[in-house]
């Protein structure tokens, strides 16, 4: 930061976040929607952003940290451009979801919960995607892919740059 008293020009992200604060100002139960919006803007929740949210919503950082770590949706570290979610719900479990997990690990070289170094993929397993009729299922970003077999996984993931 420069030493003069002028304010640093705000980044695009910070300007976006400003709009979110304006939208939820004075509203009850705003914390989770604000965190969701902030994560949409930044891709994850950096510590600086959590401090900013704390100051603006007048909620202690400790409470915010508690909420962020409670819900599976929030992330404190950068995420890959493409999010791979392999379903391990009941229906997928009995139809061989675990084999799909192995195939993903083999294809992109990371385990459940990890992100590739080039930030191309993040891989996580989830409990149910609600497309049980097509088990085993995986989602890449917002696309659902059903009736998978291990050999379909690598060519499919290759399409997501």
């Amino acid at each position, binding site marked *: 930061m420069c030493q003069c008293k002028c304010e640093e020009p705000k980044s695009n992200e910070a300007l976006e976040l400003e709009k979110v604060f304006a939208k939820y100002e004075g509203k*009850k*139960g*705003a*914390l*989770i*929607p604000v*965190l*969701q919006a902030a994560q949409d803007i930044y891709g994850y929740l950096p510590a600086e952003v959590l401090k900013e949210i704390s100051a603006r919503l007048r909620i202690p950082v400790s*409470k915010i940290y*508690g*909420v962020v770590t*409670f*819900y*599976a*949706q*929030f992330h404190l570290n950068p995420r890959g451009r493409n999010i791979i979610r392999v379903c391990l*719900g*009941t*229906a997928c*479990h*009995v*139809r061989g979801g675990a084999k799909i997990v192995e195939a993903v690990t083999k294809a992109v070289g990371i385990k459940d919960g990890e992100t590739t170094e080039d930030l191309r993929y993040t891989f996580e397993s*989830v*409990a*149910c*995607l*609600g*497309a*049980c*009729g*097509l*088990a085993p*299922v995986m989602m890449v970003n*917002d*696309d*659902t*892919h*059903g*009736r998978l077999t291990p050999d379909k996984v690598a060519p499919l993931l290759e399409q997501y740059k």
Partner: protein
Amino acid sequence: MQLYRAHVLVCGGTGCVSSGSKKIQEAIVDELAKQNLDKEIKVVETGCHGFCEMGPIVIVYPEGTFYCQVQVDDIAEIVSEHLVKGRIVQRLLFKAPLTEEQVPSYKDIAFYRKQHRVALRNCGHIDPEHIQEYIARDGYEGLAKALTTMTPQQVIEEMKKSGLRGRGGGGFPTGLKWEFASKSPGPKKYIICNADEGDPGAFMDRSVLEGDPHSVLEGMLIGAYAIGADEGYIYVRAEYPLAIKRLKVAIAQAEELGLLGDNILGTGFSCRLHIKEGAGAFVCGEETALMASIEGSRGMPNPRPPFPAVKGLWEKPSNINNVETYANVPVIFLHGAEKFASMGTENSKGTKVFALTGKLRNTGLAEVPMGISLREIIFDIGGGIMEDKKFKAVQIGGPSGGCIPEEHLDTPVDYDSLIALGAMMGSGGLVVMDETSCMVDVARFFLNFTQKESCGKCTPCREGTKRMLEILQKICDGNGVPEDITTLETLGAVIKNTALCGLGQTAPNPVLATLRYFRHEYEAHINDKKCPAGVCTALLEYKIVAENCKGCGACARVCPVGAITGEKKEPHEIDTSKCIKCGSCIEKCKFNAIVKG
């Protein structure tokens, strides 16, 4: 109004979308435009038909012809044969699994014949993004009747008479719940819809929200009028983006027509509804945890009493029901409580939507009258077991439920009979398992889920489920000792009696139910160190049956550790000390010469 001679309905539910229905729809629109038929024939994107196995599904009205597994290449033929010449495209019709007979009409398919659709009445028949289509099927008439001809007290009486019980799991009588909330004093009350469908293996709420969002809004509005609420929330899982989008559209359209917002239908009754997106926590399906989450806190349950009806969201009296429950409400007011109560059994009225999944021929959603037997659901509607394997058990009620074996398949399904069998209705997930599913592994699977999702507030759930999971893991790894069974039973009973919320209290159910009906499988794992179903890797050994082996060498080539050896055209052998039990050889062998056990 523009009139059309035919309608082509393309399923836009999540199941069919992932099978490629968007491209099908575009292709039909293009083809109709190309043949100048776009003024005569209308393409409608609908919600889920429930028969996801057969997707993408296309239905042509007025005939009601049901085409399944349609591909883009089939479109030109459907348009020029069926829509121009009136000849049904035989090869795309549904084939009955046993007789191979082609079934042209929707209504004649076994999957649909035994169903009775109430909550799903509009799913797959209307365009969920047009409120007019909902209204054309008597939508919002129940609301109008309640608001203009009944007092809130009469609405509650009607609900009590209908006998509707909560469809989210507990089965508490809805009318009674509304009465409690209405009797709580105070000017500010909330109506809440629990759409945090998290049970693995259940997706009926998703289908209702995606296929018929207005039925949920209408049900909530009738509830709000009955208890005196002027504001409400719909708490939806963030994993359901399409459901959230359709709800937003539905709310905007209902507000525009004066069916939602201030002074609804000119009656002076006002109610606003908001959508809250969940953030990924299974325990938020528990009502007190859900309300904590709406308030912006960690979604942890609170002890009851006070019940939400007395002190709920922001400490105000609140009523919370699940999606399927609300979707049933408009029907009760449209056709009367008696009509509704004439369906089902003595203590469980109406219908229930089940999600049929697992090793079944026909997977998908089926809505049936209460009191039907599990055998009818699995074998008549579900079409029996895949690959003609033997039925072993059906898991009902998700992680809170239990497994039911063959001998109890003829029990009529209702809330009370399932509890007597050690399972529960839960949200209605039915996962069918065959002889290749290991019941110890299934119990471990569910416990692993509840253990991960335990919020950690109360000790019995946080510590108890962890200990139970460790014991199950030990048994699956072949290190179980005979005392483990009694320890599991004791721990299970303690957790059931002492956990704070429904998640913890029901977490031991999958273990206790499998111990009740499949104790011999636990004993085989512990005493004989064998997994009878051939699932638990640590307890398996791979062997080559010499008389089936042709010596082709395919297995030896695929084996990653070089454990298979043998001369060409001579039976091969597996060195069990090297074998890592990956199963690649079994997949490669064309002669069924490799067995595990």
